[in-house]
Structures are given as structure tokens and as C-alpha cells.
């Protein structure tokens, strides 16, 4: 019991730290507001801008803008940042065999996982809304979205757990394989190239609910007059789907697809937790982490970060512009 008591004592100190920081933060804000609020005349306005906008701008400058420039700079230098090497790190990334494998894997992830999640999400969105108790189905399929990728990885690591076939299986996938008549299923996480696809399945499991919810909302937003008119013209069933529904929600489909792509590109949690990038499953985001913070190859790590940045740039740019346009219409 003393173990537990010690843990609770430690917890109190830590919560104290957190609450202290919050209290300090709020206190300083209120104090500054009080003082700055008393200013009057010509100084009042600039002071308000400075106080309200200043902290956020400083943090953005220090936390994003300066690092952005610095990472590009570091990517052109050697791994200990002492020597200018030009494009050498990028050359390394595109010509070294092991890194090429990483890029190929990343490309596979980038194409397959988003397409699978979006496709399945679209089918579910079309089917689920007519069903009784649709809220329950939607909630359950959407639920993985609330779970961390680390949690999801452990859940699936357990599903993929494989034991020697002399023992009883405790992993669901192995047992299912046996029930279906596959006597000696492989060790899933070691079986290349199957393992990469099994890791993608985790991403699809997490993202399908997101795709379903967004697409379902888009389908509901199609005005009744449109479908009504199409029906009067004789469109039915799949024709209606192809010529009315799909064109009406095309933008949303693309936004969902690019959003899942962005998540897929940047996620390193699944690969890191499930295989550590071994057995031919490595992806760009995890390789970037390993180069930077495990092997401390600052130059190569930065180069990989820049490649990642250039890969997500068009996707994010498209998405946020779309988001802005949508808001402008509303």
C-alpha cells in the first residue's frame, strides 16, 4: 500500500505544478489586462494590439517560423552541423537503398490507406443513414478516432499476436486464420510485405469513421430539390448516385482524402510502436525521428523533415484553401 501512497503523493505535487502554472498564467494575464486597460488616449490602441497579439506572435516566431528556416539550413549541413554539404543529404535520401525502401513504403501508405479509409467511409455513409439505430453504428465506427495511435497500435499488436503452432493462439487474427482452415499461419509482423499492409489496416481502422461522418454530413446537405428533380427525370439507384450524389460531394471526398493523406504522411506512431520500423516496414516520419533523435544525424534528419514538408505542402495548402472557401460561402 505504501507504493500507492507514494504514487498519490507524487501525483499531488505534479498536479500542484500544473495548477500553479495555470494560476500564474491567468494571474499575469489579468494583471496585464488591468494595467493596460487603464491606458487612455493615443497609446490605448497600440498597447491593446501589443498585449493581445504579442504573446502569440512571439511564440509563433520562436516556435515555427525560426525553426522552419533553421531546419532548411541544417539540412544543407553535415550531421554535426559543422560543414556545408549542399544537397548531399538529399542525395543520400534518394539513392541509399534502405532509405529508398522507406520512400517506397511511404508512397504505398500514402496511396492505399487514404483510399481504403475514404472508400469504406463513403460506402458506410451511404448505407448507415437509413438504418435504425444509426447513431450507435456511427459512434462505434467513429470511436477509434478518439484513441491515440499508440493505443490503437497496441490493440492491433494484440490482434496480430502470433505464437508457435504447438500452443493455443491468443491473437485474434491467427485464431481466425486457423478457424478458416489455415493450419499454420505466419508470424504476421515478420511476414513481408504483408506486415506493411497490416500496419496500414490500423490507420484505416482509425480513419474510416472520420471519413464516414464527414461524407455523411455532405450527403445530407444535398438539397432535396436536386435529387427530386433528378428523379423526375428518371434517374434511379446507382445512376442517381453516380450523376447526382458523387458530383455534389466531390469536393468533400477530395478534402477527406487529402486529410487522411496528411495524417498518414506525418504519423510515425503506428510503425514505431508495432515494429519499430524493422522487418521492411519503415516509413518517412519514423525514419526522420530515428535519424534526428536516436542517431543524432541532424543533417539527414533535417533533410527528411524537409522532404516530408514538401510532400504535405500541396495537400495542406489545398485543404486549408478549400476550408476557407467553404467558410466564405457560408
Amino acid at each position, binding site marked *: 500500500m505504501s507504493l500507492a501512497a507514494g504514487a498519490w503523493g507524487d501525483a499531488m505535487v505534479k498536479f500542484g505544478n500544473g495548477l500553479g502554472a495555470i494560476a500564474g498564467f491567468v494571474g499575469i494575464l489579468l494583471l496585464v489586462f488591468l494595467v493596460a486597460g487603464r491606458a487612455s488616449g493615443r497609446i490605448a490602441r497600440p498597447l491593446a494590439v501589443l498585449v*493581445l497579439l504579442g504573446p502569440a506572435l512571439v511564440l509563433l516566431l520562436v516556435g515555427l517560423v525560426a525553426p522552419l528556416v*533553421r531546419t532548411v539550413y541544417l539540412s544543407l549541413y553535415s550531421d554535426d552541423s559543422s560543414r556545408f554539404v549542399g544537397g548531399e543529404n538529399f542525395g543520400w535520401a534518394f539513392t541509399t537503398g534502405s532509405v529508398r525502401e522507406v520512400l517506397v513504403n511511404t508512397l504505398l501508405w500514402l496511396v492505399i490507406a487514404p483510399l481504403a479509409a475514404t472508400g469504406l467511409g463513403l460506402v458506410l455513409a451511404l448505407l448507415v443513414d437509413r438504418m435504425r439505430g444509426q447513431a450507435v453504428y456511427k459512434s462505434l465506427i467513429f470511436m477509434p478516432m478518439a484513441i491515440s495511435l499508440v493505443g490503437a497500435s497496441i490493440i492491433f499488436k*494484440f*490482434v496480430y499476436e502470433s505464437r508457435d503452432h504447438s500452443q493455443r493462439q491468443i491473437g485474434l487474427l491467427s485464431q481466425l486464420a486457423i478457424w478458416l482452415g489455415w493450419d499454420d499461419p505466419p508470424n504476421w509482423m515478420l511476414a513481408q510485405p504483408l506486415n506493411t499492409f497490416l500496419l496500414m489496416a490500423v490507420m484505416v481502422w482509425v480513419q474510416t469513421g472520420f471519413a464516414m461522418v464527414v461524407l455523411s454530413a455532405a450527403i445530407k446537405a444535398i438539397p432535396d430539390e436536386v435529387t427530386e428533380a433528378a428523379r423526375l427525370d428518371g434517374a434511379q439507384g446507382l445512376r*442517381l448516385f453516380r450523376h*447526382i450524389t458523387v458530383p455534389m460531394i466531390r469536393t468533400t471526398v477530395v478534402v477527406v482524402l487529402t486529410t487522411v493523406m496528411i495524417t498518414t504522411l506525418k504519423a510515425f506512431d503506428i510503425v514505431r510502436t508495432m515494429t519499430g520500423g524493422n522487418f521492411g516496414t519503415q516509413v518517412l516520419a519514423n525514419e526522420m525521428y530515428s535519424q534526428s533523435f536516436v542517431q543524432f544525424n541532424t543533417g539527414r534528419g533535417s533533410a527528411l*523533415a524537409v522532404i516530408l*514538408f514538401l510532400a504535405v505542402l500541396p495537400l495542406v495548402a489545398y485543404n486549408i484553401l478549400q476550408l476557407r472557401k467553404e467558410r466564405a460561402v457560408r
Partner: protein
Amino acid sequence: MSVRRDGGAVRKAFSAPLASVFVIAVTVLWTVPTLGLLVTSLRPKRDVTADGWWNALLHPDLGLDNYHTVLFEGGSGVSTGLMPFLVNSLAISVPATLFPLALAAMAAYALAWVRFRGSDTLFFLVFALQVVPLQMALIPLLQLFSGGAHLGSLTLLPALDLKGTYAPVWLAHTMFALPLAIFLLHNFIAQLPRDLMEAAVVDGASHFKIFRSIVLPLCTPALASFAIFQFLWVWNDLLVALTFAGGTPEVAPMTVRLAQLSGSFGGRWELLTAGAFLSIVIPLAVFFALQRYFVRGLLAGSVKG
């Protein structure tokens, strides 16, 4: 108001019983892995190693022992339990939600209502910063926290001795959250009624007074949506925590510890599943209790990173 919008005809095309079977099958498939985790975490060790968790559905012998072990004792060469890490997760997530929320609301108000030359350009620049992925900022920021900032021999910022505290993680999460938070809150704050704002100015209220007594109360829904999104984002984050908190019980959150354990706990599935369930139970509770806000925040924030 009650316009029927269900695209009925489209759906009728699929109204075969087959459709229902498909949806139910996917739902089961989507739920079973999590159920397996929960059931395993409740089974005694010898059962977990003896056979699959589905056997426990027929012969349930369940208890909370694993949770006590994993929280307070650890096990199999792991000296501390998960309790300190669970505490760290909370102590990281709550401030890392409130700080960006407050700073972003202030900035958004200034950009929307305290107009000045270049405020539109500035807003667009902040908005555009959303394209920067986390990975681009990690190395320089870590160097900054540990070594300070120098220009030649000139020290711009001294090395901050923040090791072993939550401060680097709070700071990093706050910085990374700002572009999205400012963008979302600006959209909301900019749409507040102009009359109301002008009336307050005529009454002689300062910008700070307007911000506190008009803007914040009227923005509660937007603030709540973003707060939930950010809380879950921070709670579930691995990358920022791993980089800025390291792996020690002093500061590392649950995600970092679980990622370590998934390697070192090897066959101790009864402990790993209990630990994993502990880490997902809070987001799941938030999800089921506040689903509407959650979805709204999630949809708005889906491009973050």
C-alpha cells in the same frame, strides 16, 4: 425549419438487407479489437497466456488485479507503475490546452476587431503557418530549449534549464497549436455582431473589457470545441512528448511509456492491455460524453499537425 434532407432516393438504391448486414459486420469488426483489449486486461495472468480472450466470454473469471499491478507496481523488470505517467498525461494536457486557447482567443480578437495596418496580412500569414508540419520544428526547438539561441558570439537567448519539467512540452504544444486555434477562433469572433462591439466602445469599454465580458462569453461553443480537440490531441500525442519530455517518470506521459512497454513487456499482455486501456479510457469518456462538440472540433481541426 424542418426541411427533410436525407437524400432519400439515393439511399433507397441500397436498401437491400445486404446493406444492413454489411454495416453491422463493419461495426462488429471495428469494435471487437477494443473489446479484446478490455477483456484481456480483466483476465488473470495464467488465463491470458493459456488461451485467447474470446474464451473468457464463455467462462468469465474477471477482476481488476492487473490494473492495480500495472498502476502501482510495474512488473517484469519495470520498476515503476504507470501511475506517474498517467498523472503526467493530465498535468501536460490541461495546461497545454488552456495556454493556446487563451493566447489564440486574444490574438484572434485583436486581428478581428482591433484593426490596424497590416492586420489582414498578418492573419493570412498566421493562417498559412498551418502548412508547417511538426517535424520541421522539432530539431531547432529542442536545440533552443537545451542550448539557447546564438548569432555568432552574440547570445540572443540563454540556455533555459527546463529539463525534467513540463515547461518544454507545454511550450511546444502551445506553439504548435496556435495557427489552427487562431484561425478557428478568428472565424468565430469575426462574426460577432458589429452593433454590440460598437455599443461597447461607445460606452467607453477598453478592448480588454470587451474581450473579457463580451467576446469570451459569446465564444463559449467555439472555445469548447477547440478545447476538446486540443485536449485529445495533446493526450494522444507521442511525437512532441517523446522529443521534449524524454522517457522518465518525472515528465513523460502515458503514450511515451506505453510505446516503451510494448517492446519491453513482451509477453505480459495482461499488463500491456490494462495499461493501454487506462490510456484510452479518458479520451473515450470525453468522446461519448461530448460527442457533438468532439465531432465539431475534430472536423474543424482535421488539418492540424
